[in-house]
């Protein structure tokens, strides 16, 4: 059994999961106590966005009069053609609004988590190597405390201190309103300037859990026999840690990152709301407040699919790093 079979197997699971997610998403909005008619139709009537069609016409055009299974099939088709309907509030297709936000969320997630992973590895190695020392205890305390804080609160405090009080960073958005950018560079600088605080917030909160896992994995690895072998063979500490130990400790770390992806997306929702960072999270927040259900449903769908795909990618990376896994054990327990 090699990489290829492994990848195929994981891809199969990924596809099944996506289908399950689509199904769940479909039923979530149809089998709610509030009938789909109320949720999807009434707002259109009231706002007049749908024009002057009657309720019946609207119901028919949205396909809500067809039997459930048929609606389901249509829904699947829609998902694959990217048709998520239209927003209630602005007459734009949902997919357009979502794709705008997707990029910003990706940037934030990537930046924030890279920061978190970097900090987690650096401190994790230090803490595990000097287990029980003051460095270790302090890092542990820091990580535990950070992960017990509400993410939006941390963001709020950072905003309050660094932006409101000290004025070092902007209050919201990705770029300064009204500022024109003569070239790409100035745009990027402005963007990064706006990105900094949300990125730090995401990094700080993700850091807690990641540090704990890294440290714990490294502590385990450091106590393994092959580390003693490495030392006996005459490897320097640095080579031992970075080449041998970390490679093994990466494995639980990657699994952990994959598992926490969902959690981190949630964090992104909160952080984006605090900093008014126009990503998917912020879109969801606004959709919730305005009861804009098509957007809510579409954004949720996209977020979930992205997470599933990211999990898949993590599985593949894990399979590359740990040869033992390719032989075909099932992934749970």
């Amino acid at each position, binding site marked *: 059994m090699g990489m290829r079979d492994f990848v195929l197997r994981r891809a199969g699971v990924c596809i099944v999961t996506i289908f399950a997610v689509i199904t769940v998403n479909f039923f979530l909005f149809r089998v709610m106590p509030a009938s789909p008619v109320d949720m999807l139709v009434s707002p259109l009537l009231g706002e007049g966005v749908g024009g002057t069609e009657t309720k019946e016409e609207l119901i028919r055009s949205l396909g809500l009069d067809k039997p459930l299974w048929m609606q389901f099939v249509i829904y699947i088709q829609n998902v694959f053609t990217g048709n998520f309907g239209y927003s209630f509030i602005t007459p734009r297709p949902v997919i357009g609004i979502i794709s705008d936000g997707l990029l910003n969320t990706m940037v934030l997630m990537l930046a924030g988590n890279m920061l978190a992973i970097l900090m987690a590895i650096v401190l994790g190695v230090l803490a595990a190597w000097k287990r029980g020392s003051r460095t270790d205890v302090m890092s542990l305390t820091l990580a535990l405390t950070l992960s017990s804080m509400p993410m939006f609160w941390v963001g709020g405090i950072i905003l309050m201190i660094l932006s409101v009080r000290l004025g070092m960073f902007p209050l919201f958005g990705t770029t300064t309103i009204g500022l024109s950018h003569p070239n790409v560079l100035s745009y990027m600088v402005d963007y990064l300037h706006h990105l900094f605080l949300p990125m730090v917030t995401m990094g700080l909160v993700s850091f807690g859990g990641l540090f704990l896992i890294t440290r714990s994995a490294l502590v385990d690895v450091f106590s393994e026999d092959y580390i003693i072998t490495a030392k006996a063979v005459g490897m320097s500490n640095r080579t031992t840690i970075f080449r041998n130990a970390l490679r093994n400790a990466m494995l639980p770390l990657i699994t952990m990152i994959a598992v926490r992806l969902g959690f981190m997306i949630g964090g992104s929702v909160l952080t984006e709301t605090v900093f008014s960072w126009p990503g998917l999270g912020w879109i969801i927040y606004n959709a919730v407040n305005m009861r804009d259900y098509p957007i809510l449903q579409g954004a949720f769908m996209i977020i979930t699919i992205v*997470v599933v795909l990211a999990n898949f990618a993590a599985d593949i990376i894990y399979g590359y790093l740990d040869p033992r896994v390719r032989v075909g054990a099932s992934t749970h327990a």
Partner: protein
Amino acid sequence: MSSARLVIYRRRLGDFLKQFRESRLGILGFSILLFFIFTAVFANYLSHSSTKATEGVLSERLQPPSPSHWLGTDEVGRDLLTLIMYGGRISLLIGLLAALISGGIGALVGLISGFYGGWKDDVLMRGTDIMMVIPGLPLMVVLAATLGTSFWNIIFVISITGWTGTARIVRAQVLSLKERPFIESVRAIGASDSRIIGLHLLPNIFPLIVAEMVIRIGIAILSEASLAFLGLGDPLNISWGMTLNWAFSCGALSGNYWWYIIPPGICITLVVLGFTFVGYALDQIVNPRIRRR
């Protein structure tokens, strides 16, 4: 219950308490929790403000801390200290109930899955995998937005997203217990499935479930706070999360009303830390994979 079993349970409880007392983290966590639970339960005796929590004196709105209002006032003039004390009730209650329910669901799923195996295991584990992949907060947001944000709805929404971890852990434990000789011998004697589960498996996994639940309480409190912040809290019940929500929406950040923002957050952090410490201490005592760290 026979008297012999009572004696065993009482002795086990004694051992457990002794071990718990030796855990410094556990004691610390427990003390923190005791403090907050105390202030929550006795909020109406402790709150020294003359106005009740639901009334506010508008002329005193948004005051920084002063001798008459130790933590200042909110945007309608209510004493924040009182609000926070009462808020503890809601936050703790929601956390506790949500953790209990999600722990129950998780334990049930893990038990059935681990014990019966076969297709039940496959189906349940697939379902768990899928639930684990779906991002928690977005799902909670969607559910809360469509179902409404009453007290019990919020608890439901949080529980429905939190049971997967417990399910996995319980299943693993059941699987390992299933292989033990004592289960085999009990089966050979002819015990029925429900007897094996109820009498032999449950007492062994119960401590693990409890340890899990305790940690989940902290997570549930954070989830409730996040939901409240996003506007999906119960407007009739002022949890710490709701307090923060109002703080944010009345411009506490830009207006620099730090007394509004900081205390509720600190309370949440401390309480979650408390549950984490206690849960960790419990886990050390209870987890069969005990390894010296």
